[in-house]
């Protein structure tokens, strides 16, 4: 047992590498790449934990999971107890264990990270979540006293789901509204099957439904109901907006509307949500087999898109990124996986023009070579063009994955909701309170494009504040008062050093 090991012995234990599908096999299928730990591996990995008196890993976790405790329980083979500990702070661990940028969070903060390799906290989180799902799910639903208060959660992505989970466990009646025909938001339409199997998203959604969260799909809030109508006519006591940053940015170069140029959102939605990769799918997608596919961008979405293209037969499937590889915001693991699958990576290039034939179909791209210059406000070196150093390459399909702007739908129908110059909703980062009484917001719609776990953290903080508001009826923020405080959203979202999605 782990308890018998000395500190020195623990330091010598090697980090357990998770099994994965061989690159040649996975480059042609949509099955999950990572295969998960075996129980023996999980215990061996958990034994590496030094059980620090002051666990810095917990400080590195945006939702403050009691990492030391759950890892200790894994080492003792008390897997379900470990899952219970994780779930106190994170209701969607099977998802976070797979998509969190752990190297920048808990594992980056692990004391072993400096001289050794950090404890594989993400892998362990994933293991306990999968263990629970494979062993009949969580212990029965604990009955909580109903408060009689009703909350409308708009958007069923990570922010909305995390918020809903906490609110329903506080006894509030929660309805989640989703614009699309399936639940999950970016977890569903954005992140591909091979990185986050949809079955896992559904299982976590089922757990929320069991807790009593009600879901309504095909409900485009703003169009079918305004926020005012939710509050004044439908009897909701509070509204949480977790609608995400859903408006794709394009390159702003000539030719971006040629046939064959997709936004990453469109490309991934066709494949993930509409399952255009599956036989018999009714939603079309351009045939990528043996086609030259270029993905612009260096974040997780770009990696998802290029690896998807590879699986659909693209040859080559390439990343064209304007900074150097070191500045790529994608999770380290995604970049490693992508390269193992044969993805080509061209860095320090920026598109000047997309080229087309007489019928308006994409045929190539004219690229500008870049070099790194001064450090910008994101702490990365700013790419700048090398004058006159331009060249063209032939491509058949392009996917633009350079980020999203906030969706304008909500503001259009709620003009009294204060927003920034970039269209994000102004909300207190600690409470999610907006300029509109009883309306809270969190996730990408407040911060601009960020990560699943940051959105979940915002959803959870808002849930605390919603609970407090419903209990006390006090809304201490005066209209306009938010503008005077420092807040994350006061900076341009793209200047924030966030690791992609």
């Amino acid at each position: 047992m782990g308890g018998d090991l000395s500190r020195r012995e623990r330091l010598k234990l090697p980090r357990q590498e998770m099994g994965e599908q061989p690159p040649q096999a996975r480059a042609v299928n949509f099955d999950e790449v990572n295969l998960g730990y075996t129980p023996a591996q999980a215990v061996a990995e958990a034994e590496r934990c030094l059980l620090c008196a002051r666990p810095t890993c917990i400080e590195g976790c945006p939702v403050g999971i009691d990492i030391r405790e759950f890892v200790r329980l894994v080492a003792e083979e008390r897997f379900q107890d470990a899952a219970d500990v994780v779930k106190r702070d994170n209701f969607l661990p099977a998802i976070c264990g797979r998509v969190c940028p752990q190297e920048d969070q808990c594992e980056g903060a692990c004391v072993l990270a400096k001289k050794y390799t950090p404890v594989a906290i993400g892998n362990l989180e994933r293991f306990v979540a999968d263990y629970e799902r494979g062993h009949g799910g969580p212990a029965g639903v604990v009955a909580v006293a109903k408060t009689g208060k009703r909350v409308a959660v708009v958007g069923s992505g990570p922010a909305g789901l995390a918020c809903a989970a906490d609110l329903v466990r506080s006894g509030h009646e929660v309805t989640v509204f989703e614009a699309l025909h399936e639940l999950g938001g970016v977890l569903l339409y954005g992140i591909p099957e091979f990185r986050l199997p949809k079955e896992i998203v559904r299982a976590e959604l089922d757990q929320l439904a069991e807790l009593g969260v009600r879901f309504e799909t095909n409900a485009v809030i703003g169009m079918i109901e305004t926020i005012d109508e939710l509050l004044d006519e439908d009897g909701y006591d509070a509204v949480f907006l977790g609608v995400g940053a859903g408006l794709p940015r394009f390159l702003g170069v000539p030719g971006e509307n040629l046939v064959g140029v997709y936004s990453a959102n469109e490309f991934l939605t066709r494949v993930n949500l509409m399952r255009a990769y599956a036989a018999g799918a009714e939603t079309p997608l351009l045939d990528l087999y043996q086609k030259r596919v270029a993905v612009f961008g260096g974040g997780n979405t770009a990696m998802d898109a290029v690896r998807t293209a590879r699986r659909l037969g693209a040859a080559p499937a390439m990343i064209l990124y304007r900074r150097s590889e070191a500045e790529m915001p994608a999770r380290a693991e995604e970049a490693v996986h992508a390269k193992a699958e044969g993805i080509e990576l061209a860095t320090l290039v920026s598109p000047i023009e997309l080229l087309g034939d007489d019928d308006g179909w994409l045929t190539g791209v004219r690229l500008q070579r870049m070099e790194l210059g001064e450090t910008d406000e994101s702490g990365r070196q700013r790419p700048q063009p090398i004058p006159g150093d331009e060249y063209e390459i032939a491509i058949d399909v392009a996917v633009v994955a350079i980020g999203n702007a906030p969706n304008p739908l909500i503001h259009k129908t709620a003009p009294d909701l204060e927003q920034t110059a970039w269209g994000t909703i102004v909300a207190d980062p600690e409470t999610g309170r907006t300029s509109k009484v009883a309306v809270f917001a969190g996730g990408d719609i407040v911060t601009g494009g960020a990560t699943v776990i940051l959105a979940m953290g915002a959803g959870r903080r808002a849930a605390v504040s919603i609970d407090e508001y419903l209990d006390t009826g006090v809304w201490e923020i005066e209209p306009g008062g938010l503008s005077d405080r420092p807040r994350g959203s006061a900076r341009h979202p793209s200047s924030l050093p966030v690791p992609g999605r």
Partner: protein
Amino acid sequence: MNRILETRILAPDVKYFRVEAPRVARKRRAGQFVIVRVTGNGERIPLTIADADPEAGWIALIVQGVGKSTRTFNHLEVGDTINDLAGPLGMPSEIDQHHTAVVVGGGVGTAIAYPTAVALADAGSDVIAIIGGRSRQYVILEEELRAVCTGVHPTTDDGSYGYHGLVTDKLAELLSDGHRIDYVMAAGPVPMMRAVAEVTRPHGIDTVVSLNPIMVDGTGMCGGCRVSVGGETRFACVDGPEFDAHLVDFELLARRNSTYGAFENYRNEELTADQRCRVGPPGSR
């Protein structure tokens, strides 16, 4: 789930559906659309809301069976349900009072122009409708338009009914006859809308067209429906679907709409083969 309350064949491959959708019926305004998905594996199809009754809680959709998904839709009958229906989406038509407004509908585009005609008439405009079809059987909603318009001019390409010629020929004729037309709204095939824009441009008449680009989510998320208007990229789903006809890049629209031509042909052949196999003696299915 949205139940179908009534169906009618309006023209070959063109079918009218009255669909239960109380909340959409209450909210929708002329010019807006819904996205429907017929089956669990289905494509998301944008369809203009042709009509609605907020009290009775239904909307009307008019579907032309051109691709596999729309042809599957047209097999639905009274009592069947539509798996998913989301809306209303898009910006409503801008409805002002005009001296004389003309709505131009080409083929099934008349279903898109019809609700705008009703709204313009309700706002106190004199409305003239020009509705075209290849031949008589393709001219739709004539009777409905007569109920709200001061004049309805059916046109056919082959002269089998009404005015022999294109909708734009009729429009040009009305203009040269000295009608004081100060607003034109057109919906139909891309070449028709482009031609309408060219007819009204020299007269400086306010002209809008309702665009029909490829779309997935319909809420601004995918950008598949981007169109170029006055040199700026706009999303038809959240900025439109109606735009200033004199500023739209119709060639780009036509090209982008051809993206999946090969795929649709293949799906259509597959569907046709599938239906042929199913044709057998009554009760054999």
